[in-house]
């Protein structure tokens, strides 16, 4: 330890003010006033209640350092040293924690974990912390921070925050923030005792979609004053209509995103099963390999979580693709034209791959981290927000589909694939090496499955059973869409996704899935070749 603190408080303050006098940092002008230090000490208390009081006291001091302290506390980065109870901010490094002194912002070097005690927070404290940080951020110069601060306050306002907002509104120049604050103030006005204030608030909020507004209007519609009751009723009706509309938009979005997952999982199968006619039960495991590739890449570059995902896409394609080619060369090649045996053999392969992963990576799930740009959601209005990971998956799915479509339609490999699948002997007569094309096609389908694994690693567990969960769905999508048709796979994936999501609210997740299955069975009875049956000679064989 390079620092030392006398236990006596008076001495401590003396020591601090002396050290501050001589230190050249920017905080030299703020004196370490008594309440600030007292509150800091209170923060080390074991009782959560005391800590809550300490936070309030800290906020009240209006000290510049408070915000960074509270933010550190929220992120569980606030510690105190066991030896002499100095409050510090610690950032985890490989060999311990790099500490910053709270009072003078000095870097205290790296200290091992055993010398530190974390200042624990619970949910209640987190709530208090967030509210305090929001109030403090109101005076931030960053518009984004201010906007976030105001948005945080919905449902958490009290008299003090309302007063703070009113004062802040006078100096606020940003229109977006102004309108948010006005909404907040009007929501608060709904509770006032003055009829005119209430009426004007209802009028102002008649298009507002915040749940707080709705909850308050529901209470007001039974108000003893008829005018207020009527006004809130009509406002509620308007709000409910809008909410209903956005609800449907939301469900459609959920459906699209589920659909894109289905398409991603199935599109590789659309090649191997659809174009080549191989029933590949190991398809799910090829997806799983892609997901594990993502995990491995992420382990190799732990400091670039976002970049590792980008690198994982080609890597997963290569890994799964080469395993696919290997399977084709070693097993499937010998079984063309014998669907039952292919089914059994590939099922065996799927079990082998699962157990292999279990032996190499352990049966436990592996954690694949989500980069920050993939978490959170895009808020369009209070009733509708689209989660980023789903948005990206839809885009990714469309990109993969386009790419694959171009490969099949525009490249010479694609042409050979089509030729071989349409008429094998004729293609061979034209000089196409059919068996090489088979291997490449299978590799392509498998590689795409690997890419799907990268996407799925962001949505679900990366474990040995990952593939099993998607194999049935994938076959369902391909069969429903029409074997041998890429467009069919796309349309059928999205259709099934949306149908599933619209059924889920009133049928429950389990029943919705069953109903979709029953529907497909009935559909296949009527149209055995799926939505988009192949036409022409290829269909006959």
């Amino acid at each position, binding site marked *: 330890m390079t620092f030392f603190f006398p236990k006596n408080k008076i001495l401590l303050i003396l020591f601090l003010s002396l050290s501050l006098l001589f230190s050249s940092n920017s905080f030299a002008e703020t004196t370490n006033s008594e309440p600030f230090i007292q509150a800091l000490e209170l923060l080390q208390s074991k009782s959560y209640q005391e800590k809550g009081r300490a936070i309030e006291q800290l906020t009240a001091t209006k000290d510049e350092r408070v915000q960074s302290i509270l933010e550190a506390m929220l992120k*569980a980065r606030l510690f105190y040293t066991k030896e002499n109870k100095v409050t510090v901010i610690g950032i985890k490094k490989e060999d311990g924690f790099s500490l910053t002194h709270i009072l003078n912002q000095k870097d205290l070097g790296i200290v091992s974990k055993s010398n530190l005690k974390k200042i624990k927070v619970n949910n209640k404290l987190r709530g208090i912390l967030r509210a305090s940080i929001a109030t403090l951020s109101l005076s931030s110069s960053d518009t984004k921070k201010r906007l976030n601060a105001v948005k945080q306050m919905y449902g958490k306002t009290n008299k003090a925050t309302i007063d703070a907002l009113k004062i802040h509104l006078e100096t606020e120049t940003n229109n977006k923030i102004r309108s948010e604050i006005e909404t907040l103030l009007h929501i608060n006005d709904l509770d006032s005792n003055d009829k005119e204030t209430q009426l004007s608030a209802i009028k102002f909020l008649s298009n507002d979609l915040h*749940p707080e507004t709705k909850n308050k209007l529901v209470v007001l519609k039974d108000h003893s004053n008829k005018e207020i009751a009527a006004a809130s009723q009509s406002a509620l009706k308007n709000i409910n209509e809008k909410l209903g509309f956005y609800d449907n938009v939301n469900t459609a979005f959920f459906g699209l995103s589920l659909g894109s997952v289905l398409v991603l999982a199935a599109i590789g199968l659309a090649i191997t099963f659809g174009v080549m006619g191989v029933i590949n039960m190991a398809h799910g495991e090829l997806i799983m390999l892609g997901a594990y590739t993502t995990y491995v890449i992420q382990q190799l570059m732990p400091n670039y979580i976002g970049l590792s995902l980008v690198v994982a896409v080609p890597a997963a394609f290569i890994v799964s693709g080469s395993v696919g080619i290997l399977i084709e060369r070693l097993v499937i090649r010998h079984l063309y034209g014998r669907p039952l045996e292919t089914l059994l*053999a590939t099922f065996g392969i799927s079990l082998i791959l699962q157990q292999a992963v279990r032996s190499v990576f352990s049966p436990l*799930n592996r*954690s694949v981290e989500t980069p920050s740009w993939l978490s959170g959601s895009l808020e369009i209005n209070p009733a509708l927000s689209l989660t980023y990971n789903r948005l990206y998956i839809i885009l990714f799915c469309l990109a993969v589909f386009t790419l694959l479509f171009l490969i099949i339609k525009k490249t010479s490999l694609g042409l050979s694939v089509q030729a071989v699948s349409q008429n094998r002997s004729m293609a061979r007569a034209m000089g196409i090496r059919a068996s090489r094309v088979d291997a490449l096609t299978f590799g392509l389908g498998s590689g795409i499955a690997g890419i799907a694994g990268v996407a799925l690693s962001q*949505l679900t*567990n990366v474990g040995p059973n990952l593939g099993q969960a998607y194999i049935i769905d994938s076959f369902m999508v391909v069969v429903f869409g029409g074997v041998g048709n890429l467009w069919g796979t796309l349309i059928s994936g999205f259709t099934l996704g949306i149908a599933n999501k619209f059924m889920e609210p009133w049928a429950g997740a389990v029943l919705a899935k069953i109903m979709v299955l029953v529907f497909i069975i009935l559909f296949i009875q009527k149209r055995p070749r799926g939505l988009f049956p192949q036409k022409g000679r290829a269909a006959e064989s």
Partner: protein
Amino acid sequence: MNINFKKILATTLVIISSTFLSSQAFSADEKKKETIKVGVLHSLSGTMAISETTLKDTMLMLIEQQNKKGGLLGKQLEAVVVDPASDWPLFAEKTRELISKEKVDSIFGCWTSVSRKSVLPVIEELNGLMFYPVQYEGEESSKNIFYTGAAPNQQAIPAVNYLMDEIKVKRWVLAGTDYVYPRTTNKILKAYLISKGVAEKDIMINYTPFGHSDWQSIVSDIKKFGSAGMKTAVVSTINGDANVPFYKELGNQGLSSEDIPVVAFSVGEEELSGLDTKPLVGHLAAWNYFMSVESKENEEFIKTWQAFIKDKKRVTNDPMEAHVIGFRMWVKAVEKAGTTDTDKVIDAMIGIEVPNMTGGTAKMLKNHHLTKPVLIGEIQEDGQFDVVWKTDSEVPGDAWSDFLPGSKDLISDWTAPIKCGNYNTKEKKCLATAK
């Protein structure tokens, strides 16, 4: 010729792959000395391998420890490990194999309730002895099974009390995976909540299939349900795997643990070690043991476990503690009875006390359940739990819930004179065979 060869190749491949996965009974060199055999019945492959492999290792560690101490009744212990491969009927077959062929003196095993239900008739028929280490839904009591995990009154009910009294929760989402444990637990919880004055419209129940990964609509429903201006909490009996996408979706849709806390009954340290914990911080779990509990026994246990498994990062969890307690109790009971005879050991088990890992004592009750403390922990970023609440003393396990009409009057008591797993205290008679 060539084709024939290929065909053979393909079929052997299938055969190899299927045998690869089925039973791997490691019966070590048999005729060494007379040993006491301990059966370990945990899935080492298939879906449940994720949770159960750890328990197999725990058993091997305990047996090794005991042998170092000189074994039991002067004999060495021998582990007989079988793999029921997450296949429920196979659990019954393997139990039969363990008792009839391997002649084991006790079995430590099972995780899911389905597997236990499948073992139950066999173990009763052959009069075996089994220790079941996982929290379960209750409504069962067998003479041949000792339940070392929590009954609903040792996990679910205290957790709900915590939410109700400390967090002031008024609206409840009961979300679970669609199988026997969540359904029974939620039935008990719903009856309990209604008895506490919660209106039916303030309880939302939701079931999802195993391994559910698309939580968008359910989370958005929960969000809507929770925006009615009353404090809302989710009581989750969602099984292992499906939790990760569930918590991720909660985070993505902006539901933090302060807005809507989730208290889970199936998420422990082991499950957390396989996932990105950032979106989970602040959510709750109710168990009878956490790795983070500071006590001498626990510290020692963690040290020996990490040394045995040769991995400094391996975590410990609640079912592991249950196995440790169960095994130590069995050892004590065998020593007390002076034999491994099933009936004598079963009688000797009752009343045995061993220290638990949280600084208290576990006692085997007449109904084959334990006394356990109940702890509520908040998930931290490092995948550990911070205990935020615990019961003042150990809670005795209750096999038959007091909140279900069918089981209110039932008790289980395996001592004379009742000797019955489902004794009706009103009619004063034993309902012959349990469900």
